[in-house]
């Protein structure tokens, strides 16, 4: 038993050095000013940026919803296909992730631009040009494209474990397709839904490079605002840390709500 615990030591050291201490520093900076005195000023200043928070959460929510609506049927179809098909389809889903994140997003820039490939093709059939890049839609598209695999993979891994006979039993008892989905599939795959939603929502709400590249700089999100505090003209790690802290709290709250859903349901199912 003792020997097993020692195996965890590298991770403990790692997380103290690179997770706990940095978090403590963020907390410290959030409540101090330049002279190192305690202050609430950084936190209070954030009220000014509430519109940026609203926008970031909105876009992240929309992206997460779209990911779920695309990802769930996809994950279901994959989980019900033959084994070698499953393997190939999962490979296809992960394939884009082998390419550099920035490069993929940059690729969308050249696709969506006014003189870009999509508009050029559309003009051949007499349509357009459409304004696609530098819009909120483009930012959401970037989020969906980049984070979709994080939705599909957890959903797939839980859907594939649902026994086919359970669905057949429901159908034998007269449940139609919709009822099977609502009463059987969704409740049983809830843990997968929650981890998928978390894994899409969290990076979406804090992204800065997607909004910078596809949003044309005028779609400022929290991530951009935080980045500006550190790399912008006015070096202000205090406000930057406070912003990160508030963002973390917002995410924790949303995750807490999601997780309470899971616990409630699990207990409900057991009874």
């Amino acid at each position: 038993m003792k020997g097993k615990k020692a195996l965890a030591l590298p991770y403990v050291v790692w997380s103290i050095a690179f997770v706990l201490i940095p978090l403590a520093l963020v907390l410290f900076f959030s409540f101090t000013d330049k002279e190192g005195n305690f202050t609430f000023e950084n936190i209070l200043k954030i009220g000014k940026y509430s519109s940026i928070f609203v926008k970031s959460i909105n876009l992240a929510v929309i992206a997460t919803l779209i990911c779920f609506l695309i990802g769930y049927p996809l994950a279901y179809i994959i989980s019900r296909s033959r084994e070698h098909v499953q393997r190939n389809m999962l490979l296809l889903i992960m394939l884009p992730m082998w390419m550099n994140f920035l490069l993929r997003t940059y690729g969308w820039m050249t696709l969506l631009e006014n003189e870009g490939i999509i508009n050029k093709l559309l003009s051949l059939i007499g349509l357009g040009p459409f304004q696609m890049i530098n819009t909120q839609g483009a930012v959401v598209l970037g989020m969906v494209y980049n984070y979709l695999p994080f939705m599909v993979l957890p959903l797939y891994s839980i859907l594939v474990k649902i026994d086919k006979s359970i669905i057949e039993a429901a159908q034998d008892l007269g449940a139609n397709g919709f009822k099977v989905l609502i009463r059987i599939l969704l409740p049983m795959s809830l843990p997968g839904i929650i981890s998928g939603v978390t894994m899409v929502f969290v990076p979406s709400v804090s992204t800065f490079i997607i909004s910078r590249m596809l949003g044309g700089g005028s779609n400022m999100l929290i991530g951009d605002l935080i980045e500006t505090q550190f790399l912008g003209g006015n070096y202000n790690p205090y406000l930057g840390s406070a912003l990160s802290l508030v963002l973390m709290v917002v995410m924790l709250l949303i995750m807490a709500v999601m997780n309470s859903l899971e616990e409630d349901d699990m207990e409900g199912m057991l009874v």
Partner: protein
Amino acid sequence: MKMRKTVCLLCSLLTCFALFSDSVSAAPETRTLRVFNWGEYISDGSDGSMDVIQEFTRRTGIQVDYQVFSTNEEMYAKIISGSADYDVLIPSDYMIGKMIDEGLLAKLDFSNIPNYRYVDDAFKNLEYDPTNEYSVPYTWGTVGIIYNKTKVTEPVDSWDILWDSNYAGQILMFNNPRDSYGIALKKLGYSQNTTNRDELDQATDELKKQKLLIQAYVMDEIFPKMTAGEAALAPYYAGDAVTMIGDNPDLDFVVPKEGTNRFVDAMVVPKSSPNKDLAEQFINFMLEEDVALANIEYIGYSTPMSNVKARLDEEVQNSFSYPDDEVLSRCETFVNLDEETTAYLQDSWTGVLSYGDSSIGDILFLAVFFLFLIGIVIYFTVKKHRNHTI
């Protein structure tokens, strides 16, 4: 089968070695000079030009570790974090002023830089380094308007055209407060270094008005976007404009009549430099006539050395790279603003970028979403209780 495994293992080991070979091959006992410069800002031997860094190593035997940054602020953040000891930095004017004020730069020993005498007097003792003890000019240039002649047919000579609603959605703008406010302030006829809140607020209003016409707020992306014909108008640097017009002859460049930002990028040595003597040797080398000429011909910016300028093509000497004195008299160099004004500028700029955000609809959407989430939680809780009672 086993054979194949061994081959695989060998291959992966080789790959690992390849990754580290860079650091292995550098002999540890020779001293290495660490240079930190803007990206794409030195003659690197492509297109038959002189590889300036290699030439330095060839002449002096000193190895150079050359790294690049993309904004002054990024460079500054790296220096004050102390994560790396650089020997030569090439930041811009206002950043040099800031670093002098904060005591980050070392005084140069000009007896080690005899070539300094070739630098024009017009580029000595500038606002950011009034007694010229810390910096040696590298290049200079102006910010002007680059525009596409097929999309803009009227004559371009003023910043006002960046506010012209005929070009809505076709204008690019700088994505940093200092440059954008500089343009708005010049348009209004104020100094780009003003600390007057009233003048700054007027500029904020101008920039908010302009936001409706802007296609995107970008920095270096102006280069590919303008060259590809994605936008019609953008502010940009004269030096890059030379290259851009070479790539796309539909483009043209003008220095606006209201005057503009004349920037100077200069070589400085940080106090933390472990090799100050090598740094001075490098600075002196960069001022050698043949080196400076090859370098300036490659990067296309303007040279602060008249002996070098005289050896450039006649055409270049008379181009927008070297505006006449009348225009130059209306230009200014950025100085380091006090902390309060910098913070005010940054805040106002965030206001410009998020201007027009957050309509009632956005807030409603968020509210509805949260109600929905809470609704689901309540639904499941109630269901659980019902199950319990059954």
